[in-house]
């Protein structure tokens, strides 16, 4: 006999945005398969879906669903906004770029959405299981996205590297999780902290080993040195649009789980993970910034810069304070706009005949197209962290958080590496404004591209000049966790 359990449909409510996105993803597959003529509608459908989801998420009240497995709190909301933003911006740009490089797969958009759902789950994960599922749901479509452009030789190489390294990172993470589970007997992140406290496990070597594995796994995911080795190759090999997307969205989601596990699950171990992360952050900044100095490919340079930025974002995490995490969130929000913006200009340079990913291809951009050059200028200065751009506010907030938490030397290191980073960002500016053009092809802005670039500019400058509400939001988001 069927048990007559009362079906509580309201329980589904917190995950409605995710369900909506999945539905739209499925719908996109259907459209692609059965209405191939209407393919140009796919990006707009995707954007509309994402915007609806964004509205739903921003309008929702903080809740705990599925017995603590899914947390729709403010913390999740911030990260979800970042992830949705990364998808919206990339999708707006993709029509243009996919046409240029001849990437015609309609699956592209649905893969993007599925990956997005994974990220949203990660942001909301209140349980190690959900965390892992979200992580993989995010990663699997990206493996495919990286390798989607089959005509290009490099993509499959990038895809296999990303795949192997990603799976390896997941495996490390899982083993760490299994050890934490073994010691505490639960996978619920909030309970882990309680049980560590009540069972006095803080100094337990097995727990420390588990922590080490967890850290390694997370560092793989957010590309922190010395676990960053896959990043440059993958970022360079993937289609630029995918690189832009994956250098922001998945990284933000990675930081979401990183922060959640460390701050909610293992706060008592801060004495252990704080210093470790400090060293890793410095190493990451060093590797990212110094290696970026000698790159000839702009795409690869941006890849290294992405590594360096992971190092900066880590500053807030290692602080272990509410302010630190809020700073990391703020920074990632700004990073969303400036990094995708920079990649967007890189995409504009591409032509069907040549990928135009070298720094030389920027030469004389100011003469070819002053608007594009000016935008790139703003994004690059923001990446360097020069006021009045958002990049400065984000970096300042991070430095302040880490400094006040008691890591002054790390902060000084970060500042020095930040100065080094100016060198290679400036090189691009130099090439754009102070050299004669090598290419003559005119740059074309599709409507989506215009919208995306406008949003990025607005984000970078708006957050630079009026960061108040964002900071309030992130601070209150964290305190609600």
């Amino acid at each position, binding site marked *: 006999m069927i048990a007559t359990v009362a079906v509580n449909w309201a329980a589904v409510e917190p995950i409605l945005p995710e369900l909506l996105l999945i539905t739209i993803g499925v719908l996109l597959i259907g459209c692609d398969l059965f209405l191939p003529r209407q393919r140009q509608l796919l990006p707009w459908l995707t954007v509309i879906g994402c915007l609806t989801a964004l509205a739903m998420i921003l309008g929702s009240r903080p809740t705990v669903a599925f017995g603590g497995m899914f947390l729709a709190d403010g913390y999740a909301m911030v990260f979800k906004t970042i992830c949705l933003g990364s998808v919206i911006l990339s999708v707006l740009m993709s029509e243009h770029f996919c046409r240029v490089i001849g990437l015609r797969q309609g699956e592209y958009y649905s893969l993007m959405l599925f990956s997005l759902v994974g990220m949203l789950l990660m942001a909301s994960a209140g349980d190690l299981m959900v965390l892992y599922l979200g992580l993989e749901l995010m990663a699997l479509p990206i493996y495919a996205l990286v390798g989607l452009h089959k005509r290009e030789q490099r993509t499959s190489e990038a895809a296999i590297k990303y795949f192997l390294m990603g799976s390896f990172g997941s495996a490390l993470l899982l083993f760490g999780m299994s050890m934490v589970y073994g010691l505490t007997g639960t996978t619920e992140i909030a309970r882990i902290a309680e049980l560590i406290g009540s069972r006095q496990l803080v100094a337990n070597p097995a727990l420390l080993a588990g922590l080490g594995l967890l850290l390694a796994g997370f560092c793989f995911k957010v590309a922190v040195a010395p676990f960053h080795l896959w990043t440059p190759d993958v970022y360079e090999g993937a289609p630029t649009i995918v690189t832009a997307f994956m250098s922001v969205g998945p990284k933000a989601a990675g930081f979401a789980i990183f922060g959640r596990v460390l701050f909610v699950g293992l706060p008592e171990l801060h004495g252990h993970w704080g210093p470790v992360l400090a060293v890793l952050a410095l190493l990451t900044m060093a590797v990212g910034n110094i290696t970026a100095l000698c790159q000839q490919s702009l795409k690869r340079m941006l890849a290294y810069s992405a590594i360096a930025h992971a190092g900066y974002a880590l500053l807030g995490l290692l602080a272990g304070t509410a302010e630190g995490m809020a700073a990391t969130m703020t920074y990632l929000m700004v990073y969303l706009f400036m990094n995708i913006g920079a990649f967007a200009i890189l995409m504009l340079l591409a032509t069907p005949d040549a990928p135009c990913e070298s720094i030389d291809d920027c030469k004389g951009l*100011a*003469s070819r197209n*002053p608007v594009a050059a000016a935008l790139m200028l703003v994004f690059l200065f923001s990446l360097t962290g*020069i*006021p009045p751009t958002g990049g400065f506010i984000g970096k300042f907030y991070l430095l*302040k958080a880490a400094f006040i938490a008691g890591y002054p030397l790390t902060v000084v290191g970060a500042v020095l590496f930040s100065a080094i980073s100016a060198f290679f960002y400036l090189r691009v*500016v130099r090439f754009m404004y*102070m050299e004669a053009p090598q290419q003559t092809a005119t740059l074309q802005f599709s409507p989506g591209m215009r919208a995306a670039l406008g949003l990025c500019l607005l984000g970078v400058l708006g957050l630079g000049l009026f960061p*108040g509400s964002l*900071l309030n939001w992130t601070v209150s988001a964290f305190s609600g966790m």
Partner: protein
Amino acid sequence: MSIPLLSTLIFFPVLGGLSLLIVPRQQTATIRLMALFVSLVELLLTLPVVLLFDKTTARMQFTELHPWISTLNINYSLGIDGISILFLLLTALITLLSVLVSWEAIHDKVQEFFVALLLLEGAMMGVFCALDFFLFYIFWEAMLIPMFLIIGIWGGPNRIYATVKFFLYTLVGSLLMLVGIILLYQNGGHTFDILKLAGQNYSLKLQLILFWAFFAAFAVKVPMWPVHTWLPDAHTEAPAAGSVILAGVLIKMGAYGFLRFSLPILPEATQQMLVPMLVLSVIAIVYGAIICLAQTDLKRLIAYSSVSHMGFVTLGLFALNQRGLEGAILQMINHGVVTGALFLAIGMIYERTHTREISAYGGLATTMPVFAGFFLLFTLAAVGLPGTNGFIGEFLILLGGFERAPWAAVVAASGLILGAWYMLWLYQRIFFNEVSTSLHGLTQLNLREILTLTPMVVLIFWIGLYPNALLGFLHVSVGHLLDQVNGVGLAGPVLPPVNLP
């Protein structure tokens, strides 16, 4: 005060600059006229500030206070005292002159140039008005971008090296200051308000750390020896307008920073570090002057002379008495006017000859007599001839320096002699001697150029003959500043301000 005058001063050029973007790129004439209009109006806008300024109080005036980033306790807080008001005037004036001198010198990317110039003006205004450390830092760094572009795009052949060097030197310094700001924030009651930060007693160790962090930013900007090496490169390669702004305003900001932050906030550290600072200043004076003697490049020579003159400024600052400080501030204005004028003049001649080699000139006095007259005046002002403004500043500084450290004043005085030597020698090489063959048939100065140079002449004599016009603004504010520094018990006679005719 219902009209936010200072905000208007900051944002009028910014908006004006951005409005240039609306004009189609090809219409360069319109763009130039608009830029001129904006900078002229900006200069006029400073007039109400000057007229309404109350010279009898050391309090900040025209203050504006709006919460900006409440999470971090950062406010949009503006205000000026007697010290900053002079710099506002200087900035507006120098920018106007820069627009004029760039009229024909800039052919390429005209739109971008004037946008950058006006944005730069807004940022400079902001630096002098900001009363919140964070806001100050934002303006301070924001100046870098347009300046980087101005030197890098419209500069001379070696411009890229120069501009990157300029940028990186400044950036490293600024970033260290940023760490210092955070440290100050942490220990100063979690505020960025400059006035609140000043009143507190920090431990000496903290003060020393902060002093060196600020030193990194300000000394690079001044530039003090030995971090001055970016200046000759930047000066040399920058377009005329860039050089004028660099010499006229930008390098004053370092000294302004010392005045506004290091001295009042870190009084004990300042007194501890007095001797090293004086030594560095004296080295800069003498070293800059000696290097000048060996220069073959016109702009480079002026650049090194700036190093030397700024040495006087820091000497005056760290003399830490009324005369020294007033002299230093006056000397900053003077230097801005004189060196600005020199760069303007050089820019004019460079447009005609396209060379900066001193040896390529000769006998210019016969071919361009009007120009020679102007240049002679500027040279004499730079040397510090009594009656010109240069004399007043240097005299006050030496007076103050002598009270604090006679040895420093003595060595610095020798710098004056060297200064006279290289400047007059320069004048001789360019304007007298044989008429160089390449200089035949140069056109005379046109009306625009004469109009550009005339205000400088007026200023030189006005300040030189009636310095109280400016010193009047300073007395109270400097006195208050000295109270802050000496409040911790520096022994020293508090002399009444010197009254000059």
